Structure formats: C-alpha cells, structure tokens
C-alpha cells in the first residue's frame, strides 16, 4: 500500500513538473551588455532530473550539470571556458521558458536575462 502511494505521489510530482524535454532556442542578454547572445539548449528529462547540453549553436554544445525541474522551475549549470553558467528559469507556457542566468568566472560575476522558445 505504501509503495503504491509513493509511486502515485512520484507520478503526480512528475506530471506537475511538466515535460521540458526537447530543443529550445533563444537568447540571453547580460545586464549592461550591448547585445543578445544566441542559445540552443537540448534538454533531456528523466523525472525531475535534467541532462542535455547547451551552447551558442548546434555545433558548439556544453554538457548540462546539476539539472533539475521542480514544478515550473528549471535549473541547471554548465561550464563554458572560464565561465560557469547557472540558469534559473521558469516555464512561461508550454513552449516558452524565461528566467535568469548567473555567469561567474575568476574575479567576475554577471547576470543575464534568458528567453527561450521550443524549436519546432
């Protein structure tokens, strides 16, 4: 009985988390920066766990680490060269994700706004 209940709860949480798996494209713009930077993100979802890759184009992709989805909140990290990217995004409809990005390197920290839409 307890096992069944646990499975039901897990399934319910999974359903609430929604499906973000797939290809997303968009941009991020660093606060105080003068242009937007393109992004292509490939998300693979396994329950609440996210893996996949992200980068400026389909050819240059960086592995996603510590990816999680909790409700409509999507968080993950990646390392691109000297910079560590920490995404904190929210689903804004079935085909849109928006949120914030923190970029850190040795000595520097920047913030950016991210906007992504599902690639058809």
């Amino acid at each position, binding site marked *: 009985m307890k096992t069944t209940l646990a499975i039901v709860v897990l399934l319910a949480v999974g359903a609430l988390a929604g499906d973000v798996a797939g290809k997303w494209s968009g941009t991020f713009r660093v606060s105080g*920066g003068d*242009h937007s930077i393109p992004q292509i993100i490939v998300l693979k979802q396994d329950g609440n766990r996210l893996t996949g890759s992200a980068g400026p184009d389909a050819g240059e992709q*960086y592995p996603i680490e510590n990816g999680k989805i909790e409700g409509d909140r999507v968080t993950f990290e990646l390392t691109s060269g000297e910079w*560590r990217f920490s995404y904190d995004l929210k689903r804004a409809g079935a085909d849109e994700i928006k949120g914030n990005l923190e970029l850190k390197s*040795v*000595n520097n920290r920047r913030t950016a706004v991210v906007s992504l839409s599902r690639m058809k």
Partner: protein
Amino acid sequence: MRRLILSLHLTVALIGGAFVLVLGLTGSIMAFEPELDRLLHPHLSYVRPSGRVLSLAEIGQAVSKQFDGEPIVAYLPSQSPDLASEVILPRGVVCVNQYTGEVLGTRTRGQTIFGFARDLHVRLASGDVGRTIMKWSGVAMLVSLASGLYLWWPRKRVGIRGGWRTGRVWFDLHNSVGILSLVPLLVLAATGTVTGFEDHVAALLGRVTAATQIRDGQNVARRPPAAGALEITPDQAVVIARAQMPGTLAYRVQMPRYGGAYRVSLDYPRDRVVGERNLIAIDQYSGNVIFSTRSGDLSSSERILASNEAIHTGEVLGMPSRIVAWFTSVILPVQVISGWLLWLRRKRWKVS
C-alpha cells in the same frame, strides 16, 4: 563666449565629474589587473623554472588525480617560464606547476575587487542604466577637455605658484596637469567613448568600410567516429593547430567534451592588437581542422575597433603604453578633485 564655455566646463564637470572620477580610479586598477592579481595570489601564480615542461596530458593527469577525475574543461598553458599553468574544471581554476605537476591551489569563481572595478568602469555596477551613464561620461570628458583647452589658451599658464591656502595652487595644478596630460587624456576619453558606443560605431564603420561579416568559420562536415576510435591528446591538438599558424603559441586549449571539438586559441606574441583572435577547432578523432577563425580574416572595421580597444587599455605598445594608460587614469581624479575644490571655494579664492 568665454563665460559660456566656462559655464559649460563647470556644468559638465559638476554633473559628470563623479563618474569620471570612477572611470579614473577603476581604470588605474584595470591597467595592471593581471599584475595586481598575481601580487594578491603569489603562491598560485609563480613557479620556479626547473627542467622539462610537462605535457598538457601529464598536467591533466596530475589534476585529475587530485580532484577525483573531475573532467577538464580547458588548459591555459603558461605564457612565461615563471608563471604557473592553469587548468579549468567545473569547480574552478586549478593552478599547476608545469615543471613538477604540483597542484598549487584552486581559484573559485565569483566577483572580487578586480571584477567589481571592471563592473564599475563599464556599467557603474548597475546594469543598463549604469552602462548608459558611463558611456556618456566619456562624452562629458571630451567636452570638458575641449572646453578646458579653450579656457586655458589665452593665459597659457603652466607651473605652480602660490600657497596651498590661497587656492591659487589648485588653479595652477588644474591648469598645468590638464594641459600637460591633454593628449593622453583626449586619447583615453575618445577611445573609451568609442568602446562605449561600439555597436553604433561598428554599424557606422561597416557602412564606411563595407566590412566583411565576422567569420565564425565554416563547419567542415564531420564523419561520426569509428567504433572504438581513440581521441587525440590535447598536446597533439596543439601541434596540429600550430602547424596551421606557424609562429603562434597556444594560450588556451578547450577539451572536446566542452564544445564538441578541441578548440585551440593561438596568439601571435608580437601582435598586441588582434593577436589573440585566432581559434582552430580540431576533430578529436580524426585530427582534422573543422574550422578556423584567424586575426588575418578580420574586417577593416573589426581591426579599427580592436585597435581602439588596444589603445584604450594600453596594450597596443605593451608595458610603456600600459604605464601611460595607468598614469592618465590617475590624472583623472586629480583633475576632478582640483576642479571641484576650485568651484566649492570660488568665492573665497577668487582665482578665476
């Protein structure tokens, strides 16, 4: 006319002076940021040259052993025999003695005084609004310098006379320092303003010079690796990349796990303007060059903007021009503060 110019000089200085002061103070830190950074972290920065330099693979093994096999993002080979090499991991940057493989320590990511100084200099540490303020502060500096020259011209005072209490000394200091450092100040203000408005300038230059598009390089079709194919080593990737651009040195080697291919950044040691804009991407299985971006491919407008930046930072002629850039940055607070003092005590001193 003179009254009008004096009003303009005072108004611009009162409105923009504080921001110009920030530009000067932060610019003087940024001019020697690498050296100051090493001064604060000597144990992570310096090594005693001794014997053979380890290969990147050997350095990687030493780092992996210490950090439980954490994947290596990139290598930053040392650019000087007495400076340590660096290895980038997801957790931070590991400093390594390239002669012994000894891990000297790890630098974590996050803002420090140097990052804050840069953030203040470029965007007043306050995003879009701050960036707008700082780029217009460059314009304010140009107006202030031009109006200052106009005001100085009739009397052409150079030299300091009078005592500290009379205020004359501040007047003379403001005049003398201003005129003697006018050229470097104008260069710094003009190049800084161009950098601030770079997007607009780039668009304008693109029209004037009919610039070619920025070359991201053409991706060469890649075949999937054969089953069991082995990856080439980072050292082999460097050899392949340098063969494409003889005379260069590798200053960054990004591993294929991060970005899909080896990305080797190369530097022409003698080209300080656009020398660090060479990138060769290499397939990790076949060793084929996938694409390359070379400084020689830059358009005229890109070269102009790169030169502008190199002049502003002082990199253009190496250490001598960096010293000039630092000295000019230090001059700025002197001019702003002496100007403010003159204005605050204008009635008491009656120097104008």
